[in-house]
């Protein structure tokens, strides 16, 4: 090193020391997103591509930490406890309350995105304690998936109400093609049984999200209906189903109806599965329909995915910048496209994506968000509601009564006790 080089070098070092700014080349930031691995891997690949593209323009490295869906909650709990490990997270709607103190408020982004691609569907569903703690991302919607040929063979039309479905289901089960609604410890079960309750005009919690409201005559009606439905239209196997069993049941040619996202149809199409004992492609005789109407309304629930920024992130502004980029129309379109229509946004404009309008089997997507409510409906998405979901209290209640292990009254009393206890526990910590 000669004298000149030394001077240049030390001036540079002095500069860094006085401004406390590292030189630009060292300013590469790392943004880490933790999410559940997507059912359609191409969607995660597209998200990574967008992150890389954005990173190139912003001197940042974008990383995705994808974990199996069942482990996402555990992963987030670990991250929050350590106050490190990710900048951005895929949240379920109830996480906003659970992690309220650890999330950056994002009303600015929500408003901007809403103006560009909105309006948002049911924006009041997302706010928690009056604040925007995360940006709504996409729902995985729960229509009915059914076999058109089997339905025709028993002389029935697409069921509009639960009673229609019962009538068709009774004939279908007799013909060896039962209906498959999981009554087990799974998401499918959680959402389908909530939809049934709401359509009968009842819910487990009041509008305030605190009053436990499950013990009422309308719940009795809904449970009594399920008792009939379970015995006459379903088989015992629904008690042990996970979220993939119903897909297999319909694609194996057994089930006539399931309540599930469009994955069964997509899988059948991709693998060119044939109807058992014939050359017919099964996806050609499959279709989707809106969930059935009950005496009061038509309703279903869904996985509500959100994107939240951790307060302990060192790159909050950069993360916000990435979100703005991700929510631009071209990126949203690609994101939906690569997911094969699985990612249903909570925004009006992207819902008109050709992937849904061009395929008649996806025509329900335009309407289903009107009938889709968060699992805590009609209450806000509280941390307690997330526990009720995680412990599968509602499907358990239906299963206990449907199998006659408990009387209808005892099953509802049991659920009421569990839910009351969960709410009391949350109250002890939040005051």
């Amino acid at each position, binding site marked *: 090193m000669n004298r000149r080089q030394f001077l240049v070098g030390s001036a540079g070092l002095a500069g860094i020391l006085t401004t406390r700014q590292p030189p630009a080349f060292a300013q590469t930031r790392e943004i880490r997103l933790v999410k559940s691995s997507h059912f359609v891997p191409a969607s995660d690949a597209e998200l990574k591509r967008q992150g890389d593209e954005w990173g190139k323009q912003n001197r940042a490295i974008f990383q995705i930490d994808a974990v199996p869906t*069942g482990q996402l*909650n*555990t992963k*987030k*709990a670990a991250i*929050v*406890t350590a106050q490190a490990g990710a900048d951005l997270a895929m949240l379920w709607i109830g996480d906003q309350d*659970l*992690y309220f*103190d*650890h999330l950056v408020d994002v009303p600015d982004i929500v408003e901007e995105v809403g103006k560009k691609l909105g309006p948002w569907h049911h924006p009041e569903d997302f706010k928690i304690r009056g604040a925007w703690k995360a940006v709504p991302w996409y729902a995985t919607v729960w229509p009915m998936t059914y076999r058109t040929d089997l339905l025709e063979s028993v002389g029935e039309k697409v069921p509009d109400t639960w009673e229609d479905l019962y009538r068709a289901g009774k004939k279908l089960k007799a013909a060896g093609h039962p209906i498959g609604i999981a009554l*087990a*410890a*799974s998401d499918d079960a959680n959402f389908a049984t909530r939809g049934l309750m709401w359509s009968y005009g009842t819910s487990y919690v009041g509008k305030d999200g605190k009053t436990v409201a499950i013990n009422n005559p309308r719940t009795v009606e809904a449970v009594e209906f399920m008792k009939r439905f379970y015995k006459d239209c379903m*088989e*015992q*196997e*629904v*008690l*042990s*189903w*996970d979220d993939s*069993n119903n897909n*297999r*049941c319909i694609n*194996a040619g*057994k089930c006539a109806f399931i309540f599930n996202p469009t994955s069964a149809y997509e899988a059948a199409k991709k693998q060119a599965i044939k109807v058992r004992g014939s050359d017919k492609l099964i996806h050609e005789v499959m279709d989707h329909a809106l969930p059935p109407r009950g005496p009061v309304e038509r309703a279903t629930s869904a996985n509500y995915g959100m994107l939240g920024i951790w307060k302990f992130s060192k790159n909050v502004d950069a993360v916000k910048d990435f979100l703005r980029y991700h929510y631009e129309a071209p990126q949203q379109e690609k994101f939906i496209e690569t997911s094969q229509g699985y990612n249903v946004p909570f925004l009006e404009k992207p819902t008109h994506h050709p992937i849904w309008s061009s395929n008649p089997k996806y025509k329900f997507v335009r309407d289903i968000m009107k009938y889709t409510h968060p699992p805590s409906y009609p209450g806000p998405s509280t*941390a307690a509601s*997330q*526990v009720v*979901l*995680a*412990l599968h209290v509602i499907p*358990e209640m239906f*299963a*206990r009564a449907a*199998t006659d*292990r408990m009387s209808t009254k005892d099953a509802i009393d*049991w659920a009421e*006790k*569990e839910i009351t*206890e969960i709410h009391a*526990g*949350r109250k*002890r*910590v*939040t005051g």
Partner: protein
Amino acid sequence: MRALSSEAAAGYGFIAPAAVLIVGLIGFPFGLALWFSVTETWVGRPGPFVGLANFVRLAGNGTFQLTLVNSLLYTIGAVALKAVLGFILALLLLRITRFEKLIRGAILLPFVIPTALSTLAWWWMFEPTYSVLNWTGRALGLLTSDVPWLSDPTLARSAIIVVNVWRGLPFFAITILAGLVAIPQEYYEAAETDGAGAWQRFRNVTLPLVKPVLGIVVLFSTILTMADFNIVYLMTRGGPMNSTHLFSTLAHQSGMTSGRLSEGAAISLFLFPLLVLIVIVQLRLVRRQTAYE
């Protein structure tokens, strides 16, 4: 105070890393869990001290009571079966003289294969749509309708016990076999000279001398079986209707997936006094050994 001799200092130096690991990886989490269990703590939100309220509430909770019953049925059922079948298997292995090493090695396989993999294979056998057991039963004309292996509470409980026994049997058999091999042949000869029959030889020589080994195996297995997680998590996730939940799976569901850390901690620590009791009783039984001088 006397300074440590260099040898003693080196000794402490050598155990220090292990001690740090034990304190850091077992002691600290255990202490934290103890603390959580007497508070109302949620993820990201430390809560107030509530004393033993969590335990009192759990004792009155239907799901927890069911889990207690499940855990006892599972542990007693699986350990008893493993002990009896393991003993029989060990006695049979003792008689095998050809391909002895190969057979003994092969028997260990279920114990060696990662549980997650082998349990998934079992799950496929019991799974409702493609159950190979049901398919075989139908093909042979033994079954007219599918058996709801995992949907019926009794069958589901039996299924997870079967898988646990399958996995744990080799451990029992091989360890008991080691105990059998160690019995000096002279005892049997002496017993025979005294006119003892096969049953009497088993009753008065084999059993008492294998007892210490058997005791240790049963002790270990009781603890491991009661704390089992993988089999239930992969096969039934606690269902149907919570009828197969064990302490660990219920604690995971309550504490980890729903964020109520204190609830999860209380559920898993409920087990602790019971396990300590089992250990004390077992170790006492083992110490009361039979000795033939």
